[in-house]
């Protein structure tokens, strides 16, 4: 997969600063994500995880530093923003499906309008990805008629239909009942095994252990620690990390 793409990192964040009014939400963040790399971001609530990944597709505008995605710098150039959004898929905590469209329409909308795909092609792609997230039989239903886990899998399929090169996940399982978390994580594990570049904000430490190349720990708007999962879970010397881990791992 990597061979067809232009060289360089998938995402490069340099000295990123973000303010909400006078509140300093991100402080000099530096992060580089290679193509095909799987990053898990964790940290206490309010530490800036969402803000950081939302800056990557410009749902939030950063105030300082540079963000380069697939070789394109994210700045005020609308063409750059559109181009980057086309290549970066995002999955939200609350699914955010379009409730007035069927599952199939949810998946076909952007490919037809943004990628100008003919209907037949868009539908074939949509059905293929619905198959992949294991809900092909729900294609004609509306989001409100599905369980939370099913909705989140549709949301993943919807993002994949744009055939993005990078996927961002913002706590994709946090709004789900426990019995539905596994079905969503399974899909994400499959995606990771196929070489997708992924940045996942999640507290599912089992998932992090299984698929992450690196775990990033954030606190107070900063990246406190960055390590491969084994090292992160077993031999972190950072006090804040250890405290956080003892909370999410429950001991």
């Amino acid at each position, binding site marked *: 997969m990597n061979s067809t793409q232009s060289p360089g990192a998938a995402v490069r964040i340099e000295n990123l600063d973000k303010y909400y009014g006078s509140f300093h939400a991100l402080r000099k963040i530096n992060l580089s994500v290679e193509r095909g790399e799987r990053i898990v971001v964790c940290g206490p609530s309010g530490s800036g995880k969402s803000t950081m990944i939302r800056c990557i597709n410009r749902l939030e505008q950063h105030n300082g530093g540079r963000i380069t995605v697939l070789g394109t710098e994210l700045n005020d150039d609308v063409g750059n923003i559109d181009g980057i959004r086309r290549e970066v898929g995002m999955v939200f905590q609350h699914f955010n*499906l379009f409730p*007035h469209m069927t599952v199939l329409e949810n998946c076909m909308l*952007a490919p*037809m309008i943004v990628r100008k795909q003919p*209907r037949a092609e868009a539908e074939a792609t949509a059905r293929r990805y619905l198959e992949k997230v294991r809900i092909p039989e729900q294609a004609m239903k509306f989001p409100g008629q599905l369980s939370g886990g099913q*909705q989140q899998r549709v949301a993943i399929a919807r993002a994949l239909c744009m055939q993005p090169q990078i996927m961002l996940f913002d706590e994709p399982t946090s709004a789900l009942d426990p019995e539905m978390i596994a079905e969503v994580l399974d899909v994400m594990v499959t995606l990771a095994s196929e070489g997708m570049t992924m940045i996942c904000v999640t507290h599912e430490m089992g998932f992090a252990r299984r698929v992450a190349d690196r775990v990033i720990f954030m606190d107070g708007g900063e990246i406190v620690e960055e390590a491969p999962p084994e090292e992160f879970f077993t031999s972190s010397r950072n006090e804040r990390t250890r405290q956080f881990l003892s909370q999410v791992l429950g001991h």
Partner: protein
Amino acid sequence: MSSLLRNQKVRNALLQLLYVGSIAALVLAGVAIARQNLAEQGITSGFDFLSKSTGWDVNFSLLPATANDPYWWFFLIGIINTLFLGSVGLMLATIVGTIVGLARTSSNELARLLGRTYVDIFRNIPLILQVFFWYAVITHLPTPRSAYEAWGMLLTSRGLYVPVPNVGGPAMTLAIFALIAAIALPVWLGRTSRLSQPIGERLAIQLAGAAAALAGAAIILAIGRLPDLPLVDFPALQGLNLKGGLRIPPEFSALAIAIAIYGGSYIAEIVRGGFKAVGKGQMEAALSLGLSPWRVFTLVRLPLALRAMLPILANQYVWLIKATTMGIAVGFTDFFMIVALTINHSGQTLEAIGILMAGFLTINLSLAAVFNRINKAIALKGNQLRG
């Protein structure tokens, strides 16, 4: 027996029966007393008066009218006047309300301030004062000789004179339907082909639909054209008076403007509420898929906002239709005024009021029924609480 009375369903049914029965008895007693009183005054009750000629005239009618026409014809004229005023007023109020409502949700602070000021002012002045105000403004416009002129229309203190095509009544009606189709057809075509055609082709289909309907209207007008007259009848000054065209009297304009401005302030709040009800998440998801802000608006934000506002909008429309009865304050012969005149001239109070109530009930229940159908058709399916 006593066990039957303790049954909840039986109890409810009995109570219901008692309630309906006592109301029916009250109404019947009222009618009987009124009949007796009227008979003593020498007024015969019944609907025979409908076929008698009125002996008075109306100041505005879309149908031909003379004092020799019967009451039923005048009632029809009244209903059409009310519907005409209602539809013009509602249309204008919707346009005003949409603009002001969007201003109120805008990210521009000045626009928000202007929108709020508008709503605060016009929602808090009674409608009848606004009607009088606009009536005073319009009747102080220049006389016909120094009329304001624009696009063949003349604006004077005697009313707004607009050009009309010299076309027979039936053809005119058909042509109006064709024009409505020219607007409705592209919308419908857009919906049915929503995801079956790429955007470019869809636009072509929509344009073709609109063009076909417009061509139909043109053909109908050409066929229904009155012989030996110019196609369009322009109003023009003749001596001291204006001849030709259709005269929209100041009464109508004052009412339409007042309803537009007053109704617009209420509709603005409904529009604002509708847009606020749309979750930010859906719009962010659309943006993250690479849709342009305009597409996010037309494909996600607007459709969801419409669903949130239509039920409330329907109530507002019903309410504004009832507000057309303000016509009597400035002397516009709407349905209510025709009924009032009928009561004065014929003394058939009960019958006339019965017709008035039946008329308004029919109009408003039909409006509500249409909106209910639309609401049902576009209602979001399933449980919306999750996500």
